[in-house]
């Protein structure tokens, strides 16, 4: 392919709308643009002037699929701004609800979006009605896995999307403890299905290796999506509240979202399941470590397709973590913490299913939001995605256009990008510079 313009108007089987434009001249990629096309809603601007109590549920509307992640990051940021320390029971209930989110969200990505790539078909809609067919089995596994993840989140948080029960300082209503034995039984039931999925995604033949930095939250005691410090491959440890200082935002004029560079490294960096497993596989649940042992030996990995495998392993982690909590939690009736609003600044950093998510809230003395900032995983991965694609195209220009398009979409899908998230905030630093 000497000279060509390759356009993918709409990349499919992802969350939201994105496109790709590649310009090839004389066997060289002279231009490549990963275009995030969702329109901004400017929620971090429109949230200013609102009382803090209204903010987490409003900002959960940033994203449909990981609304619980935005809800929890926002609650954490506001709690820190107000000096509220959630109870240990609240922390465990949040972990439970979050385990359910990760199980459901990863299963959606893996089985509905990536599975067709694994099977070499366009869509799960094309999977035959044949019970002996591998795709049929995996797809129907996913129905059970997603349902159980949703049941867990709903039991604790009240809904899987825009959950009504988590609030600043705790939960508006305690879960019904009598539902726990059934939840444990359901989680045990999907364990072998997830193990089958881990094996299937481990056998995905595709490889895309590039040397990126990896960055994620890491808890010192156990594998945790909600608490910890930000760490990277070279061992740098950054407290949550300092995370923002280590990022440099980059204007990408053709994209409706900014990219980010991590100041510690020369190259790009990746956030997501691959980072988490690369950096924290040693602190996974003991049962997960035992049953996923042979697959965990594949990490640390620089193969972007192993983000899929890492997500599958995280589903098992969340099942085992949730079972442990449900079996040991001695639930007591608790009301949300009572507080008098004050002026303050708080930062909430959590691991969204797609990677490190940052919320910053600043309030005045009446608890009115005066500033708010959000940095989402897909915006952070944007530069990495482009660099991967440039490498892929440069090394494969001998292939036909159809193959190039298909493979490019597969690489993008492996990142599990979310455009709804990526376009609903404004970063400030680039304007200042």
């Amino acid at each position, binding site marked *: 392919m000497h000279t060509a313009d390759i356009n993918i108007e709409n990349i*499919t089987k992802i969350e939201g709308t994105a496109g790709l434009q590649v310009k090839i001249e004389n066997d060289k990629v002279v231009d490549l643009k990963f275009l995030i096309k969702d329109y901004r*809603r400017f929620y971090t*601007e429109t949230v200013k002037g609102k009382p803090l109590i209204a903010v987490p549920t409003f900002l959960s509307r940033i994203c449909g699929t990981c609304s619980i992640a935005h809800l929890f990051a926002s609650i954490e940021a506001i709690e820190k701004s107000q000096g509220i320390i959630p109870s240990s029971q609240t922390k465990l209930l949040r972990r439970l609800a979050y385990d359910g989110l990760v199980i459901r969200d990863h299963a*959606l990505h893996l089985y509905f979006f990536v599975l067709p790539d694994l099977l070499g078909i366009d869509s799960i*809609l094309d999977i035959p009605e044949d019970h002996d067919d591998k795709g049929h089995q995996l797809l129907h596994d996913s129905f*059970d896995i997603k349902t159980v993840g949703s049941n867990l989140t709903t039991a604790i948080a009240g809904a*899987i999307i*825009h959950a009504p029960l988590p609030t600043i300082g705790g939960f508006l209503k305690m879960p019904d403890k009598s539902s726990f034995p059934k939840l444990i039984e359901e989680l045990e039931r999907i364990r072998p299905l997830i193990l089958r999925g881990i094996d299937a995604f481990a056998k995905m033949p595709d490889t895309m290796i590039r040397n990126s930095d990896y960055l994620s939250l890491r808890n010192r005691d156990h594998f945790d999506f909600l608490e910890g410090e930000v760490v990277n491959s070279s061992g740098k440890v950054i407290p949550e509240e300092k995370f923002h200082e280590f990022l440099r935002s980059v204007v990408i004029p053709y994209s409706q979202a900014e990219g980010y560079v991590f100041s510690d490294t020369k190259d790009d960096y990746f956030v997501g399941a691959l980072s988490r497993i690369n950096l924290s596989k040693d602190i996974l649940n003991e049962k997960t470590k035992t049953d996923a042992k042979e697959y965990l030996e594949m990490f640390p990995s620089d193969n972007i397709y192993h983000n899929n495998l890492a997500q599958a392993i995280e589903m098992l982690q969340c099942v085992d973590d949730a079972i442990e909590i449900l079996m040991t939690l001695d639930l007591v009736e608790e009301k949300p913490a009572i507080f008098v609003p004050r002026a303050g600044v708080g930062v909430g950093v959590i691991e969204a299913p797609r990677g490190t998510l940052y919320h910053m809230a600043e309030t005045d003395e009446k608890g009115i939001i005066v500033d708010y900032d959000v940095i989402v995983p897909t915006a952070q991965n944007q530069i990495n995605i482009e660099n991967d694609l440039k490498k892929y195209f440069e090394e494969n220009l001998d292939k036909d256009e159809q193959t190039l398009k298909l493979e490019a979409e597969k690489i993008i899908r492996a990142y599990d990008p979310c455009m709804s998230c990526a376009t609903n905030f404004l970063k400030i630093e680039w304007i200042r510079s």
Partner: protein
Amino acid sequence: MENKPKLKIGWFSFTCCEDSTILLTEMLNENLDAWKKVIDFRHFKALKTNNSITDLDVAFVEGAISSASQAEELVKIRNNSKYLVAIGACACTGQPSASRNALVPEEIDFKIAFYLCHFDYSKDVKKIDQFVKVDDMVIGCPMNKKTFLEVMDKYLKLFKIIF
């Protein structure tokens, strides 16, 4: 079975958090096997690459309209569909995606202005019935599951796919 008529539907998303899309993917856990027998998913970007918007019986549209190009796309969908159903709060009411409409001029500083000018944003975000005829609405944020099933059932019967 293969030759039996199916309801030809399209699922479309404009400016929103796509929560109704996510809810629909959850509803597939229980309904996909049955729906595949009676529904032809002609356009469903979250699930397939080969999409078509021609000759649809029913178009389901979530999200509010942020730009002239989105409005144009919406009209194109309407012209290719016998019926159109607005899905979720943003499509039915514009909110919360339209919250930027409430920003007063002094709040539209250079940061926001950059995006508004750099891309083809309309002055206001609008609900979809400000551009096209809407035959049914499934309200909720995300859409109400029960109402959606009732609407789907209504069109399956209207097109004599089920009785």
